C-alpha cells in the first residue's frame, strides 16, 4: 500500500463520489489503527471486569465486583476512620476541656456545622441568629435565658427547654396591662418607672422575673432590663405576651416556645454529676445503674451534644 502513496489516483476507492470528489481507500496511519484496536480491547476488558451488560433483572456483575454504592461506603468509612480518633478523644472530654484545647475546639467547630444545620438551624438560623420576628432565641448575643456558660448550654440542649408565663388577660385590668407594658419598655431603656415597678411587684411579676426585673436563670425567665427581647420590643407584642403568656395551655393565643429534648440520658447524667459536685462527692464515682434505667431517649449522641454546645458557645456570645 505504501508505494501507492505518491499516486493517489491509483489507489482504490470506496465507490463514493460527491460532485466528482472520490473517497479514496487509503490506509489509516498505523499508529491510529493500533490505537483503535487497543481501545476495542479495552472495552472488552472493561466488560469483563466491571458491571456492564444489562440482563432481565440485573446487569452482569463483573469480575472485580465493583459497585458505586460500595465505593461510596468505602469512602465514607475512610472519612469516619479519619474522624474516629478525634471523636474517641472528644467522648472522654468535658465541654470545658474541649474549649481549653485549641485542636479539639477546631475539630468540634469544624464538624458541628452540618450537625447544627440538620438539627438546630430550622429554628435558630444557620449562623445562630434566627430571622427577625420569628420568635426564636438568638444564640449569638450575650443574653442567655438559662445561662451562657458552655456547661449551661450543654444542659439546655440535652434537657430541652420550655418557657412558662401565665396568661394575664383575666387577671389584669387593661390599664394595668398598659402600665406594665410601659414599665417593660422603660426598663429596657434604663428609664426609672416607680409606678410601673410598684405594679410589677404588686402583681407578682417579680416571682419569676426577679425583684430587679433581670430574670432568674434557674427559671429561664426573661431579663426585662436589657436591650434584647425574647419575642419583640414592639409595644403591641409586649402586650400580647402579658395578656396571653407563654406556653399557657389555657389560652389559645399563648406564645409557644419549646426547645425539644435532645438527650434525656445526658440530661439525667449532667444533673446527677452536678448534684454530686454540690454534695462534695466525686462525680466519677456515681453508680449509673441507680440513675439510669436504660429507657432514656437519645435524639443526639452525647458527643454530638458536646460538639454543639461548644459550637454554640463560639458563636460570639458564650460566657
Amino acid at each position, binding site marked *: 500500500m505504501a508505494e501507492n502513496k505518491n499516486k493517489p489516483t491509483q489507489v482504490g476507492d470506496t465507490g463514493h463520489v460527491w460532485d466528482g470528489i472520490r473517497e479514496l481507500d487509503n490506509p489509516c496511519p498505523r499508529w491510529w489503527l493500533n490505537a483503535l484496536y487497543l481501545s476495542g480491547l479495552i472495552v472488552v476488558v472493561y466488560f469483563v471486569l466491571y458491571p456492564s451488560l444489562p440482563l432481565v433483572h440485573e446487569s452482569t456483575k463483573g469480575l472485580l465486583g465493583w459497585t458505586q454504592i460500595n465505593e461510596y461506603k468505602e469512602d465514607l468509612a475512610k472519612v469516619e476512620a479519619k474522624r474516629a480518633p478525634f471523636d474517641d478523644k472528644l467522648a472522654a472530654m468535658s465541654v470545658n476541656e474541649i474549649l481549653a484545647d485549641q485542636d479539639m475546639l477546631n475539630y468540634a467547630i469544624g464538624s458541628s456545622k452540618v450537625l447544627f444545620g440538620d438539627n438546630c438551624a430550622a429554628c435558630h438560623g444557620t*449562623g445562630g441568629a434566627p430571622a427577625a420576628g420569628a420568635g426564636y432565641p438568638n444564640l449569638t448575643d450575650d443574653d442567655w435565658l438559662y445561662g451562657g456558660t458552655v456547661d449551661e448550654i450543654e444542659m439546655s440542649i440535652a434537657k430541652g427547654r420550655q418557657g412558662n408565663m401565665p396568661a394575664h388577660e383575666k387577671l389584669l385590668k387593661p390599664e394595668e396591662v398598659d402600665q406594665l407594658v410601659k414599665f417593660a419598655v422603660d426598663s429596657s431603656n434604663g428609664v426609672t418607672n416607680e409606678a410601673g415597678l410598684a405594679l410589677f411587684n404588686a402583681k407578682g411579676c417579680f416571682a419569676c422575673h426577679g425583684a430587679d426585673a433581670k430574670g432568674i436563670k434557674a427559671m429561664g425567665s426573661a431579663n426585662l432590663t436589657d436591650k434584647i427581647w425574647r419575642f419583640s420590643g414592639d409595644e403591641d407584642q409586649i402586650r400580647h405576651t402579658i395578656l396571653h403568656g407563654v406556653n399557657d395551655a389555657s389560652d389559645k393565643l399563648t406564645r409557644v416556645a419549646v426547645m425539644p429534648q435532645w438527650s434525656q440520658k445526658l440530661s439525667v447524667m449532667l444533673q446527677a454529676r452536678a448534684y454530686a459536685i454540690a454534695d462534695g462527692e466525686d462525680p466519677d464515682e456515681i453508680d449509673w445503674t441507680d440513675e439510669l434505667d436504660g429507657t432514656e431517649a437519645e435524639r443526639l449522641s452525647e458527643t454530638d451534644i458536646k460538639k454543639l454546645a461548644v459550637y454554640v458557645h463560639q458563636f460570639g456570645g458564650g460566657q
Partner: protein
Amino acid sequence: MSEVKNNPNINIDDLYEDVSEWRINTGDIKIVAKRLPGGFRTLKWLGMSVWSILFLGPYIRFNGAQAVLFDLPQRQFNIFHVTIYPQDIWMLSLTLLFFAILLAAVTSIAGRVFCGYFCFQTVWTDIYTWIEGKIEGNTPQKALKFSKAPWTINKLSLKALKHGLWLLIGLFTGISFVAWFTDAYQLWDDLFSFQVSLTALIIIASFTGGTYLFAGFMREQVCFWLCPYARLQGVMYDQDTVLPSYDAERGEPRARVKKGEDFSTRGSCVDCNVCVAVCPTGIDIRKGQQEGCITCGLCIDACDSIMDKTNQPHGLIRYASYKELHHNAPVVPLYKRFRVIIYGLILLLALSGIVYGFTHLSPTEFKVIHERQPLFVLLSDGSIQNKYTVKLLNKTKNTIKVHFDIEGLEGAILHGLDDMEIEPGKVVPVTALVRVHRDQLDADLIPIVFIGKVENSTIAIRYESMFMSPKQ
C-alpha cells in the same frame, strides 16, 4: 470508480495533479536522516543544550536546600531565596502568558524556532536517532541492510544496546523531572533503597515509557498528527516571516550536473536530493512551505555544502520571507511590523508584572473575613457586635509575633484577638469580635481597618473591612 472513469467530463488526473505532489508520511517508512555538519546543526546543538538544565538544575543547592524546588505537598515554590505561596500564583499565570506570547512572537519573526531547536519531541528524537544511526547505520541503505540482516547474536546485542540506551535516557528524563518536585539527592537515596513513593515511581515510569515511545518510535509522527503547537504555529506566519525556503526562481529548472557545466543557462539546483535526505521529518523543502517543516534549517546546511562543491554561492535554500522570494521586496524591519510590536508590548507587560511580583512579594498574607450569618448582633447593653475571622499567613522563614489593633471606628472595642505567634508557612484562623455602642454609629456600613504589628520587624499588616449595623 468505474462510474467516474467513464464520465468524460471529469478528468480525475487533473483533479489530483496538485495532490500527487504531497507525500503523506503515515509512519510506515522509517526516516533515516543523513547527518551533515553546518551552522544550523551547531545552532541546533546549542538549542538542545538548554535542556541540560532539566537534568542538572535539581542538584543546585542554595542555603543548604534545593535551589529550585516545586514543593507541591507543602504548597510552595522555592526559587533560591524566594518562596512563592499559592496566593502569589498570579505570577505563574503571567509567566505562562510570557512564554505563550514569546512563542507567538518568535514564530511570527522566524517560524517554528521552538519546533526546530528547542522542542522536547524533536530534541529527544534527535538524540535517539543519533544513537540509532551510530548502532544500526546512519544512511537509509545501511539501516535497511541492518534490518534485513539475519538475527545473529551480534545483531541482537546491537538492538539490545540501542533499546537499552533509549530506555536509560527515558529513565533519566523521568527521574530528572521528578527531582524538581522533591529533594533530588533524597530521591536518588530512595531510588537505590527502593523506598521511593508510588507517585514518583508512576511518574518516572510514565516518562520513561513516554520518552521511549515518542522519541523512539513515533518521532516525526507526533509533529504531523499529534502536536497542537505545530498546527497553532502555522497561523502565526505572515508574508514577512523568514522561513527556510527554497529559492525556486534561482533553482529551477533543476537538473543533474555535468562536469564543467555553466550554471548561467540553467537552475542552480542539481537535484542531488540531499535536502530531503537530511530532513528529520522526511519532507522535500523544494515543494514549498508545508506542515511537516519544523524549520530546523538542516536542509540549508546540506544545500550550502553542495553549493560549495559546485562552486555556486550559498543560499539556494535559506531563511527568507515570502515577500522576499516572490515579490523581491526588501526585508521589513521588526519595529515596522504591527504583529511584532503588539507581541512585544504584551511581552513587556507580562515581564514587568513578573518583576513587580518578585520585588513586591509580601512577607505575610493577611485576610479578615466578615461573618455573614448574622452580619451583626445586638448585645444586651445595646452595643452592636460584628464577628470576623482573621487569617494571617506567615511567609517569612521565622516565627513572628503579632499584636493586632483596629482603626477607623470611634469607640470600637476589639475582643478575642490576642497577640499571636505564627510559625513559618502557617496560617492560624482566629475569631475577632468588634463591639461599638449603637449611639456611636452614624451609618449602617462603616469602614474599619485591622492592623497587625510584628514584633522586632518593620512588616506592616493591614486589611480594610467593614463594620455593619442595623439601619439607623
